[in-house]
């Protein structure tokens, strides 16, 4: 009886053994990986190494390499007032965007993290800006910033040329970008809030802590990994800003909003300097690489807990 019952599985196992020894079994996983690997090689790795190569070359107006120049392009950039200005503007832009985006996102998450009826609608609205493209956001806000017809000057009884005054150009782009970033910060923070165990708040309430005190001594420390993650992600994103700048200010007035990616775009497509644009791209890469490595280091240490 026992023997008979085992015949079928044995046969199966035998067949399976053959399969496991087959050539197909060995190469099958690589076949599954092939589409992704080919695409990533062609459109991420290859252009990455090509960018490095272009950055140490002199190119013709079509982007073809004429000869190698070593680090000359980098030397040129770091002696160029315009590029140094781009770095400063980008850093300043990131600073002005990131902190308000996270603080307001945090405020929204606390507001929405209550079990009231109809909260779903508010939650959808708070996350909504993440679905809005930079082009739509920029064009809507350009109308709001319009010096004579715009609501903003009207509400604040001001007469500011938001997009034409060098003092305000960057601020206008900052405001639009903060608005665009609110959604994503909000969703990560509310997910974080929902992960904090209720008991922590209950015991704090027993100890007589008020609302502010509760958030200060429980919420913020518990969220510190999420906050740190958001800080880095936000910086990485704001360092790559382009759409709003291209539509609203084209790097101006003067060079007030000439952020790195806009400078890359301008050098490549208006000045036909693909070599300089590539060197600028590598500088951007190195800055973001350092930030990412910092994030990994901190994630290992887990900031809190």
């Amino acid at each position, binding site marked *: 009886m026992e023997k008979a019952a085992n015949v079928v599985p044995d046969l199966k196992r035998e067949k399976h053994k053959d399969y496991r020894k087959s050539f197909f079994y060995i190469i099958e996983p690589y076949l599954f990986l092939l589409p992704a690997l080919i695409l*990533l090689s062609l459109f991420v790795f290859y252009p990455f190494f090509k960018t490095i190569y272009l950055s140490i070359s002199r190119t013709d107006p079509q982007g073809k390499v004429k000869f190698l120049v070593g680090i000359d392009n980098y030397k040129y950039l770091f002696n160029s007032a315009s590029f140094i200005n781009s770095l400063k503007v980008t850093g300043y832009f990131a600073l002005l965007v990131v902190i308000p985006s996270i603080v307001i996102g945090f405020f929204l998450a606390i507001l929405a993290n209550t079990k*009231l009826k109809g909260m779903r609608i508010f939650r959808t609205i708070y996350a909504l800006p993440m679905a809005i493209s*930079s*082009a739509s956001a920029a064009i809507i806000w350009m109308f709001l910033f319009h010096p004579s017809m715009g609501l903003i000057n*009207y509400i604040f009884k001001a007469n500011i040329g938001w997009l034409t005054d060098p003092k305000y150009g960057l601020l206008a782009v900052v405001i639009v970008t903060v608005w665009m970033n609110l959604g994503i910060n909000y969703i990560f923070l509310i997910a974080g809030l929902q992960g904090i165990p209720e008991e922590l708040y209950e015991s704090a309430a027993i100890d007589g802590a008020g609302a502010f005190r509760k958030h200060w001594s429980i919420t913020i420390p518990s969220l510190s990994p999420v906050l740190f993650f958001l800080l880095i992600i936000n910086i990485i994103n704001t360092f790559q800003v382009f759409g709003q700048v291209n539509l609203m200010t084209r790097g101006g007035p003067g060079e007030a909003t000439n952020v790195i990616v806009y400078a890359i775009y301008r050098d490549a497509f208006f000045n036909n300097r693909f070599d300089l644009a590539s060197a600028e791209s590598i500088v951007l890469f190195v800055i973001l690489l350092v930030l990412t490595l910092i994030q990994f280091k901190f994630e290992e240490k*887990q900031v809190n807990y």
Partner: protein
Amino acid sequence: MSDKSKKVLYKVILYAINIFVAFIIIAPILYALLVSFMTPDQIFEYPPKLIPRKLYYENYKEALETAPIFRFILNSLIVSTVITAGQIVTGALAAYAFSFMKFKGKNVIFMIILSTMMIPGQAILISNYLTVSSLNILDTYRALILPYLASAFGIFLLRQAFLSLPKELHEAAILDGCSNFKFLNKIVIPLSKPALGSLGVYQFLQAWNQYTWPLLVTNKDNMRTVQIGMGMLQNVDAQAFGPIMAGIVMILIPSILAFVLGQNQLIEGLTAGSVKS
């Protein structure tokens, strides 16, 4: 004050703050919608008006006449749909190999794929542009689509989902003579719908909202995507706010729809990895 009335007051205040804040957040979109229905006269009135005097549809007509908006929408729909589908196919295949199969170099290949996350998209655009231009495919769907058919993010997200499925299921199925491809199709994919959904919504929104790449690789009007098309509308006549806002409303509808319908999956998929620690 009694405890009960305190609670009611607390609720009222919370609702009031939420309504106020939600109104401010959504105000730019609402305002674009309202302006899209105003007559030119009303748009240029001072002080600025908030409510259209009547529903004036001419802005929509004019927007459609000034720019081939339906063509832009069609282009964006084709590009976004193919990118989304491609991301799901390449992502699911690769994620399957990483979660169910044994092979040499598995960890190394995984790390290599993850390392692409370190390369910022904007830093490789110039080289990608030169590649696409040397292939003579500027102004084609291929140029718009090809670079975005696979991503480390997609592979990683699906791998996390696939790893949560029981391994025994796979072993039993293979012993029964089920091929890996069939197992992926019939078992893994149906069981991973939430993760596939969140990747789908995310990639669709990303592709629909993309700006820099389509700006670089398209020159002909009939190949423009919605985001670039809007910029054109703006450039033709910067004072034609009515039609511009009408155009914006039309291109916002698909992205807002995708977001509202897919928000639960999107949010879960995005936050799952980073928050649970």
